[in-house]
């Protein structure tokens, strides 16, 4: 980044260039006609008189004066002033001639040789033609060879700045270019400035309405509105109120503009609302009230009071501007530098115009500052828009960042969940594997080991070994049945058991009946539940076959109170629970029932045995 000195130099260079360019352009547009055939009229005679007709003018009392003439400076205290010029023409013009008034305040009527040549607007009510060139064509034949007399009747309002600038007489084609340029600059550009300033103010005002917290936009908008309202004076010619009231309006808008600008400056620097700001607001309120009162009473005191008040506003603005420049210098803030640059630009023009108004410069050339002021507003507008856009971009960036962060967090969360789910799954698998291993160890494993033991022992009998191996196979089948996904349907489980055991029991000489009700589906029936139920029932049925002296056995299953109840009922002679061969089996069954949270009840008597399994 370039050093501070370099940046400052660049800043100055740009400022000087822009100012010079602007200056040159305005000078060009304000150019006066200097053609050969054009006569510049600046030596005239003046008489203060309120008559309306040049014929009625007295012969005496005329004072020679030179144009431009500023009444206030010449001590002319009147509302109507006549100017007179005698002109000798050798040859009457063959082309169309006209007369160009470069500046008159407020309005003037032209007479040639006693006839009215032209008047723009009217003298009563008084048109505000102070900021425009006036051109009148001279009708053919009015100009005589020899002596011609021009009269100009200038009217202003009380305490007004009456003025007549140099006039030009000559061929129309020589006068019109200058007229057009001045008209363009003074009227059309002014109109455009009013419109543009108003529009900018409106747009920025809308932004403020949408973001009431950013008061900097609000004050800027207000300043623009006041200024737009004030610039009407530059191009509005016919006004429907009295001059005094119009003046009050202009003063009010000027003060409003000044105060709003001061408050805008302070907000733009980021200064919070403090006492000083309230003083400015108070000043504005008081000024408006005073002017309103004076204006309502049409008091002439309006003028000096207004000058004072406007002057006060200028002081505020100047003070604010100085603070701004100091802030820019100290902080190096580019925005502040922009403001400073624009302010200095305008200041140059304002100074020049002040010199002009005070008479140190030829007032004919015209005012410059009115055209520089928009530059200020443009710069400020640009800065505000830049701020706005930056804020938008920042919020977009922030949003993107936040979204990215949220996405990252979500992904991380997902990963964590995945990990937890994986762990859970592995845990479930591991415990299931353990369970199956346990079952195989207790079931098939123990059967095979028993058969081995039997074979190794001397007392092995083939049928015994066969029986044990058959039991091992049956147990394995039972396990596989239990692993079948049944989705809580115990009916299927019991159906399988029935199919496996039915033939076997019948062959052993029993009458088997199965009384199965449609059992309700139970969620939470794990393979472990199924296996234990199957084993218990198988054990019970095997007991019936092996140990009971029964002829018939019935298996019942029904749903009861939300649970399931299964019964194995035989019509044998009962057994002694303490008998070793059934005792261990019963204990086993009870243990199994316990592991799945079921209740086993065995009732045995002389008429038969009932083994009941209750699942909650």
């Amino acid at each position, binding site marked *: 980044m370039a050093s501070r000195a370099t940046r400052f130099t660049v800043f100055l260079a740009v400022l000087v260039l822009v100012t010079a360019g602007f200056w040159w352009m305005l000078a060009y547009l304000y150019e006066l006609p200097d053609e050969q055939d054009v006569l510049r009229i600046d030596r005239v005679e003046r008489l203060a008189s309120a008559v309306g007709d040049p014929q009625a003018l007295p012969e005496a009392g005329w004072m020679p004066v030179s144009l431009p003439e500023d009444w206030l400076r010449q001590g002319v205290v009147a509302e109507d002033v006549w100017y007179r010029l005698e002109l000798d023409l050798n040859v009457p013009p063959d082309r169309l001639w006209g007369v160009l008034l470069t500046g008159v305040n407020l309005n003037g009527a032209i007479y040639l040789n006693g006839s009215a040549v032209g008047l723009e607007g009217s003298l009563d009510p008084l048109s505000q033609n102070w900021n425009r060139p006036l051109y009148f064509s001279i009708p053919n034949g009015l100009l005589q060879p020899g002596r011609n007399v021009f009269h100009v009747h200038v009217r202003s309002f009380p305490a007004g700045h009456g003025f007549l600038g140099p006039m030009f007489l000559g061929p129309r084609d020589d006068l019109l270019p200058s007229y057009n340029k001045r008209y363009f600059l003074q009227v059309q550009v002014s109109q455009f400035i009013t419109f543009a300033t108003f529009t900018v103010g409106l747009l920025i005002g809308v932004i403020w309405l949408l973001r009431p917290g950013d008061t900097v936009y609000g004050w800027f908008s207000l300043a623009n509105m006041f200024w737009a309202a004030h610039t009407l004076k530059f191009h509005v010619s016919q006004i429907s109120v009295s001059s005094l009231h119009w003046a009050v309006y202009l003063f009010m808008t000027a003060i409003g503009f000044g105060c709003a600008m001061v408050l805008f400056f302070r907000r733009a620097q980021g200064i919070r609302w403090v006492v000083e700001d309230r003083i400015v607001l108070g000043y504005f309120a008081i000024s408006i009230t005073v002017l309103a009162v004076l204006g309502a009473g049409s008091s002439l005191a309006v003028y000096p009071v207004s000058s004072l008040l406007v002057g006060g506003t200028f002081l505020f603005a100047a003070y604010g501007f100085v603070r701004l420049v100091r802030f820019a210098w100290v902080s190096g803030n580019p925005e502040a530098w922009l403001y400073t640059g624009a302010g200095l630009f305008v200041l140059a023009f304002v100074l020049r115009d002040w010199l002009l108004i005070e008479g140190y410069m030829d007032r004919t050339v015209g005012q410059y500052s009115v055209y520089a002021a928009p530059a200020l507003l443009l710069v400020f507008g640009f800065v505000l828009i830049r701020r706005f856009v930056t804020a938008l971009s920042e919020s977009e960036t922030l949003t993107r960042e936040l979204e990215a962060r949220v996405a990252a967090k979500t992904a991380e969360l997902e990963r964590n969940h995945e990990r937890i789910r994986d762990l859970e799954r592995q845990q479930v698998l591991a415990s299931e594997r353990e369970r199956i291993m346990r079952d195989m160890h207790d079931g098939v494993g123990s059967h095979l080991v028993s058969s081995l033991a039997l074979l190794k022992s001397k007392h092995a009998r083939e049928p015994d070994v066969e029986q044990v191996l*058959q039991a091992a*196979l049956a147990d*394995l*089948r039972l396990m*596989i*049945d239990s692993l*079948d996904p049944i989705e809580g349907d115990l*009916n*299927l489980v*019991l*159906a*399988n*058991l*029935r*199919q496996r055991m*039915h033939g076997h029991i019948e062959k052993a000489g029993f009458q088997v009946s*199965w009384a*199965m009700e449609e059992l309700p589906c139970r969620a939470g029936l794990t393979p472990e539940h199924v296996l234990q139920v199957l084993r218990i029932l198988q054990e019970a049925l095997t007991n019936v076959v092996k140990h009971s002296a029964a002829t018939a056995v019935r298996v019942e299953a029904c749903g009861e109170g939300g649970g399931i109840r299964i019964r194995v009922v035989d019509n044998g002679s009962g057994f002694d629970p303490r008998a070793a061969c059934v005792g261990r089996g019963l204990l086993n069954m009870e243990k199994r029932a316990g592991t799945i949270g079921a209740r086993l009840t065995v009732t045995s008597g002389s008429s038969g045995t009932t083994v009941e399994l209750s699942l909650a």
Partner: protein
Amino acid sequence: MVYRVMIVEDDPAMRQSLQERVEKHPDLCVVGTAGTVQDGRRLITEQDGEVALVDLGLPDGDGTELIRLAAGRGREVMVITVFGDDRHVIAAIEAGATGYLLKDTDAESIGDSILQQIGGGSPISPSIARRLLLKFRARETPTPEGRDTDAVHLTDRETEVLQMVSRGLTNNEIAALLGMSFHTVASHIKHIYRKLAVGSRSEAVFEAVSQGIIHLNKEN
């Protein structure tokens, strides 16, 4: 008449035992055995017979292709299995088997089972029945045109039979409840197995066609 039985089983002791048990029945005789897919293929193509007992777990491949081969030649194929679990049985049925046999079936029952199969019935278990019900229900979901035929869907009767089997009722009980003979119940089951095989065959064809493996002849 005496029915000729072929056995494909890789374990020699089991093979021997099966042969002995089958031949205990006067109406059955074993005309050939094999221990591998290769030998089994040769046996089935070269040897005539009515019944084939095929084990799925063979050392050089899956017995399923032998089942398909034998069924294609009009043999009654029973898959021999240790557990009779529905996964193996249904896979075999889809390949064309019409029944299954537990490897440890005693000599008295084995002959009856085989003859029952030849006679038109098929063994089934509640698990297998339930699996079949699910399979056929899945087939009822909208399929591309040309596959919605009765050849692959269960009739209401057949569905009823399967549902009763899945509840554990014996064939006798089912026959009594539905008012049909025991024989009819058994043949219903055989028809259901056939439908499963047909359905899965056409499914396989459809899959192969849609994957471009085979091209249907335009004239067909």
